């Protein structure tokens, strides 16, 4: 059969090209543009090569923020994934209560980021917040505006509250897809509860859990609004995560060059970690089969 050649077909991809160009490529390229130039105002720019990248890589400020960021993502993943699985395992599998649980669980996911931040900011205040006031009344020294540990605990609890549902819902979907016969066979085989989890539920959930971990990693690595509203990065620099630092640099100090270099490296780190994670997980899958 002869192939029909019609170069006009390229026009059909034009809308997509335009859309992607305006939504992703052009904004990204402006950042790239800033990262290799310097300005002394008046909207005049000079080529500066890789100097901003070198400067950022040499600065403790970025490395510290990166360290805090990794710690934050690590902690919330270590809590949310097991907790989400635990919640999913204990949710009713069918009936009215299953639906009630699903709706209740989705509620935190529907709340806008800055509202979540505001809720917890108020909730944790020692003068008017329910949580802060109660803790204070119990004699626990809790003040997230002054105490680094309290600030971290608040952010982590807030994120767990906000996002564990996502892991739980995904894990629940994975659990629901397991046919009854597996559980029945496990009963016949006299498998313990732990073995049912280890050899039936966990393997069947591994696919959705990979997605859940990936999503939670990316999201938590980019987190900005909630910590900005609650702590603003403080006390001191204690909760200055990467994006908070970036905004300070770009908009607070108006250091467009370094901030642009920072953004690009930030973006590459997320891309790299996600890629490594995904590759490792899918390879593990392949090796097993």
């Amino acid at each position, binding site marked *: 059969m002869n192939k029909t050649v019609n170069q006009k077909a390229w026009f059909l991809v034009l809308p997509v090209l335009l859309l992607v160009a305006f939504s992703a490529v052009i904004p990204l390229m402006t950042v790239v543009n800033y990262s290799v130039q310097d300005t002394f105002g008046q909207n005049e720019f000079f080529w500066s090569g890789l100097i901003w990248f070198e400067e950022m890589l040499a600065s403790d400020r970025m490395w510290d923020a990166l360290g805090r960021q990794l710690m934050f993502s690590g902690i919330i993943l270590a809590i949310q994934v097991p907790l989400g699985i635990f919640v999913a395992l204990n949710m009713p599998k069918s009936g009215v209560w299953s639906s009630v649980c699903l709706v209740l669980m989705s509620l935190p996911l529907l709340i806008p980021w800055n509202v979540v931040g505001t809720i917890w900011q108020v909730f944790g205040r020692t003068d008017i917040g329910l949580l802060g006031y109660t803790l204070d009344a119990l004699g626990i020294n809790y003040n997230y505006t002054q105490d680094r540990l309290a600030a971290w605990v608040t952010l982590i609890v807030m994120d767990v509250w906000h996002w564990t549902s996502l892991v739980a819902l995904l894990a629940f979907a994975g659990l629901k897809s397991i*046919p009854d*016969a*597996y559980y*029945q*066979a496990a*009963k*016949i*085989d*006299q*498998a*313990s509860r732990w*073995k049912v989890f280890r*050899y*039936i539920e966990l*393997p*069947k959930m591994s696919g959705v859990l990979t997605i859940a971990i990936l999503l939670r990693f990316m999201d938590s690595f980019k987190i900005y609004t909630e910590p900005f509203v609650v702590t603003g990065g403080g006390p001191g620099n204690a909760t200055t995560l990467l994006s908070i630092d970036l905004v300070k640099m770009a908009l607070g100090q108006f250091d467009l060059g370094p901030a642009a270099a920072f953004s690009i490296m930030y973006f590459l780190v997320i891309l790299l970690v996600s890629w490594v994670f995904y590759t490792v997980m899918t390879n593990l899958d392949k090796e*097993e*089969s």
Partner: protein
Amino acid sequence: MAKITLDNLAHSYLPNPAGEEDFALKELNHDWEDGAAYALLGASGCGKSTLLNIISGLLQPSQGRVLFDGLDVTHAPTAERNIAQVFQFPVVYDTMTVRDNLAFPLRNRGRDETYVAERVQEIARMIGMEDVLAKKARGLTADAKQKISLGRGMVRKDVNALLFDEPLTVIDPHMKWELRTQLKKLHHDFGHTMIYVTHDQTEALTFADKVVVMFDGRVVQIGTPQELFARPDHTFVGYFIGSPGMNVIPAQIEGNTAVIHGAQIDLGKGYKPLEGKQEIGIRPEFARLSSEAGLPVQVRRVEDVGRHKIIRAELFGQTINIMAGEDDHVSADMNHVTFDAEHINVYANDWRVIPEGVAS
């Protein structure tokens, strides 16, 4: 191994069953003899799997008792019953190797490793999977997975019974024969009580010593394949077993003749006066097409299936099947049918009527 007794057993999936129609499994009394191979045959949704799950303890019956060798196990958990069950869709533990899969039920019961290894090797040889023992179960084909399921069911020597819930549904036809033959051989070698649920009559008839036919939540007949073929107790059995099934023709039974639309048929046996719906059942194998004698029919279609021909004909507006030999000539003037009186069964309200002067 054990004799399994079902005593007044019935089950409804509703919490408060109002009438008989609410029961998925209607009241049933039956002994499954120790060491016999049974097939549980019936259309989808007739209660076969319900019955099986009650025996294995995955389901608690609404009423009645289940006894293993006289011991009441109605409310005993599955583990205590020491039953093996193989399901319709292969259940394997994906992340384990084939070896670990086969060893799983033994290890869960705390058997020592030398015994486990020996037993696994034996089962692997039996199901022909010795060469893939070290492989993960995940990447295997559906029939290999189902073989593992079968193997896991058989790995324990001391099981009270082996239950199969349509285990060959997902298997390719040529593998079906092989696996079924293996099962049969296993039964022969080890003498486990086996109950095999299926909706495929060939499977049931080739596997089992005795076939239990279920219809609408009720056991309608228990018998050897020969009995089911020659003397179906219920019109459903006649219809369900055989290919094509038995012809069931409405008739008036008058002593030793049946009257169909004024035409008389000799039954060869006498019957007491019957009440309710009366029918005669005749298998296509025992109906003959002829050119002069018998009841008038109109031939609609002749299907040549190789070893024989199946003639679809119309008898007083009702479709009936007639079988003819491979070499029998079917011509346009053959518009009558005769029935072999010896093989006519009489049914009243769907249940077979025993002729007078016959023991059963």
